[in-house]
């Protein structure tokens, strides 16, 4: 079937790609050697595939790649592009908010969005906003600590 040429901004850089309509955003990002967004559950339930499209968090596994045409796409890899960890990334390290790390990029991007919308979230706000992100290692208490740590910075 036909491929389509799309143009979009990827972590601040204009890029283009030829994609088939049935490809999702995670598959597209892999072609740019970006592996921070991972397809894990494939159903939008776990948050491992979190990507920002026009500054809104989406599940990359449930988002057609062709839909980013003309849009701005931000992945976890952009956060330390200047060689410095973002406050949220540093807070996750300081709070030990991960074990295996597989889910961490999704948690970190979602935490960024949460703090942008709500700079001083309560525990309940954090739990609500991150309820769609799963950590199989069970580091939820540390994740909440990390978000509060980042909010204080």
């Amino acid at each position, binding site marked *: *079937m*036909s491929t*389509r040429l799309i143009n979009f901004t990827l972590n601040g850089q204009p890029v283009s790609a030829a994609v*088939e*309509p*049935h490809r*999702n955003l995670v598959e597209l990002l892999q072609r740019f050697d970006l592996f921070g967004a991972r397809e894990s559950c*494939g*159903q*939008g*339930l776990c*948050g491992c595939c*979190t990507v920002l499209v026009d500054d*809104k*968090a*989406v*599940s990359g596994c*449930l*988002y*057609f790649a*062709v*839909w980013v045409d003309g849009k701005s796409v931000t992945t976890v890899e952009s956060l330390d592009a200047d060689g410095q960890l973002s406050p949220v990334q540093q807070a996750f390290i300081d709070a030990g908010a991960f074990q295996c790390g597989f889910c961490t990029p999704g948690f970190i991007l*979602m935490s960024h*969005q949460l703090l942008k919308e709500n700079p001083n979230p309560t525990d309940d706000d954090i739990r*609500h*906003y991150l*309820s*769609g*992100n*799963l950590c199989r290692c069970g580091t939820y208490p540390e994740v909440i600590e990390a978000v509060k740590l980042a909010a204080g910075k």
Partner: protein
Amino acid sequence: MIPFEMVEPRSLKEALALLDPQEPTIRPVAGGTALMLMMKAGVFTPTRLICLHAIEPEHARITVGGNGDLRIGAMATLREVEKDSNVASRFPVLARAMRTLSSVRVRNVARVGGALAHGDPHMDLPPVLSALGARVSIAGPNRNRELPLEKLYAGYYETVLEKNELITAVTVPALNGRKAAYMKVTSRTADDWPSLGVAVTFALADGRIREPIVVVSAATEKVTRMSAVEKALESAAPDDATLRRAGDAAADEVQTLSDAHGSAPYKRELLRVYLRRAVRQALDESAQ
């Protein structure tokens, strides 16, 4: 996923013309979050998707009319409804329901029209909006029509929409003091598909329930209005005896279905209990 074509019409008229009443493998797509799950599971294999994004701006508005009616364009995202100040102030039950519905990421993408047209009985908007007395506006190639939302649903994943019709908006009448609550039960994670959804709205006059609308979802094959429950509640004082009677009527009236979210008998008991809780919650809101 199996390859398919995607086309992007520039107007509603063009979109309607691209749909084919005889061809089930051609379907409209708005947010795609539910449709992609069906495609990944292999239960839906499209040949062509009609992407509605280019006609979005004029069909995504959320407005309040002079009579207090809320009109939500079908292409509004669930998150836009959740964040809308008119929804928050006039229909708190709707704003609250949005927060319990899937995750922020899905709500950023999923559209109201898709959530109504999908016909999945586990979705939350159909029962809430039905209990609020909402009407859907439907555009077709030759005529437009309007239906009470509850009449949209014909069965499990089945609606009365023709394959070449599109929902353009949903209109919710002003609450005018009616009490409203929606309760859902998820048996696995907080943001999972529910085992049961139950929505109630009613007026309260002289301490008695008037004109109740009671709707069940998720436990049943489709969004279902429960007339026996409404009869049990009508003109009754909302005391423990009334609520028990209404809960029992609900359990008797409805045929619950077993699925991954719970067995039919389990859901029947959930309904018996949660119907009472929903009426109580609606009454509590008035105290706030």
